[in-house]
């Protein structure tokens, strides 16, 4: 039998890191928006300029498990890319014979639920976001949806923010698209 006790309202601190102020939140929002625009416009080389040299880009594997905390195995990867891997992927795309993306998928990356928080490091912020990627490949008569959450860190440099790390948690256990020939 439960009673309706109103719990002590803990300060926001424990729930999540210290919230960014409006200017910093704006930095994060604009960065994610710019990224999504560049990738949707097939401007991967421009996007590449927004990556930090220490980039780590990871898509862990998720399974349906009884508890949420067991779902994602952070030592199991769909993708685990450093900047060198990303460079490799872009180079391959540029060969003109990376057939899966000829023509490039028409995409729309809808980024929302953006939350920027400060971290221990003065020049690094953490940014959480939710994304729906809508994809139509080649002459496909259908479309594919890719829903995911991202946990990013951005490094604030004198040239603007750079993507330092990205963890992508796919909502679904099986991809409903034939491949991940796209950056998420």
């Amino acid at each position, binding site marked *: 039998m439960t009673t309706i006790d109103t719990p002590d309202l803990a300060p926001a601190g424990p729930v999540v890191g210290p919230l960014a102020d409006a200017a910093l939140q704006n930095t994060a929002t604009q960065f994610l928006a710019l990224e999504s625009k560049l990738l949707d416009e097939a401007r991967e080389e421009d996007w590449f300029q927004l990556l930090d040299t220490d980039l780590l880009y990871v*898509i862990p*594997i998720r*399974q*349906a*498990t*009884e508890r949420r905390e*067991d779902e994602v*195995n952070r*030592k*199991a*990867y*769909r*993708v*685990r*890319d*450093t900047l*060198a*891997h990303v460079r*490799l*992927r872009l*180079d*391959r795309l540029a*060969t003109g*014979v*990376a*057939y*899966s*993306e000829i023509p490039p998928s028409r995409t729309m990356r809808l980024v929302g639920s953006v939350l920027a928080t400060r971290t221990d490091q003065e020049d690094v912020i953490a940014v959480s976001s939710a994304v729906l990627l809508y994809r139509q*490949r*080649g002459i496909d008569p259908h479309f594919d949806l890719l829903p995911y959450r991202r946990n990013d860190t951005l490094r604030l440099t004198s040239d603007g923010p750079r993507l330092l790390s990205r963890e992508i948690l796919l909502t679904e*256990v*099986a*991809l*409903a*698209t*034939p*491949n*991940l*020939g796209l950056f998420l």
Partner: protein
Amino acid sequence: MTVVEPNVAHGVLNILARVENELARNRVPVEIWNSDAVFRAEMDQVFGTCWVFVAHESEIPKAGDFVQRRIGLDPVIVTRDGKGGINVLSNYCRHRGTQVCQTDAGNSRFFKCPYHGWTYSNNGDLVGTPHMHEAYGERMDPKEWSLKKAPRVDVRSGFIFASLAQEGPTLEEYLGGGGWMLDILVNLAPGGMRVAGPPERYQINADWKAGAENFSGDAYHVDTLHWSNEEVGMIQGTTANAEMMHAYDLGGGHGTLGFPWPMIGLPLWGYPPEIVEKFDLSTFDDAQRYVLETNLPTVGNIFPNFSYLRAFAPVTPGGPTTTVTTFRVWQPIAPGKMELWNWQFVFDFQTDEEAHDSYVTGQLLFGSAGTFEQDDTVAWEGAGRAAQSAWMQREQMSFSFDQAGRTTADTTFDADYHGPGTKRRTGFGEFNQLSFYKRWLAVMRGDTATVSGEGATTR
């Protein structure tokens, strides 16, 4: 094998007759790649009788461990019971069909049905019914009312297979040369291989047979479809691939391509000394050793839908190298549609760091975002689309495996090969693919008596 009545519908029998005719001239009719009737018959004839891979022992090491997998369209729970036994259980409650397991993996002694609480042991037995006395008088018979179980479950080198048929060849008989070759791939060291992580899954708009055919013997696509990898330095020399790959037709529909790793200065798939020194090749027979020294198994398929691939690659272009091993299931989910289940494997003895490099690089090449994989996943879509075309059906379109009759490569069998099945000294010829479809035809007709297959018998 007569355990399943050949209940293929009339329309399917007509299709199978055309398959037989076309195979005789190295063609395969388009209609088998996307047809409700053919797909439905496959669920019975192929996935209802064959030994199907469901999991690897390293995925359920402890008592109570389970993973949920599929045989054909059916979800099955693969469990390690308290006695260490492995069980492959249907996931429908016997009372009213509610699914008793809603997760992909876990550990549990029991599966309790949420609807009315019937409770099954992880060996499938019905061990509890709420209000037992009032509801049922006496205890329901635990075996009669167990979750339906795959009648036959067996393990080969850690790989768990199940057959839904009560009778038929044993797993060893069924695998035949396919098992013998699999051993070469994984039994290089005590403890064999283990999964590097859980499977990753992605849905492809292509028939499951497209993947099985390709891994059976398609040496010919590499320097076209995957050429971009050569350009960026992830692989080299693919223009010689079809020539250098030798095709093992292992009987029973199983096929493998063997690459001459030693010839390019990479004996034993390029594994480095610190790995090789852990290998113990003494368990292999002479024929296996011959394989290990000449054309090592590199890509292959075990009938119907279980494939493997071993490759050597830099962890990044120009960087240090590693050898990767991927296993995969071409899981049918609808006519013309499959879900690819892809695992990276490492040797049980490998250090975390070695395993990590192999895992990450395996995924870089052959994961859903893999620089090779991406292009396969979409190249295979065409056959299923063509199969749905009224025009192509009117034209009685068949796909071409004409290399078998036209290749100028030396297609005589390697006389020095004394293993099961046959080995040709070339990857040209599309022979293994034809053997895959011949086996498929036999299985679809319920004529699976000769387990060892045409390949094995011509040895």
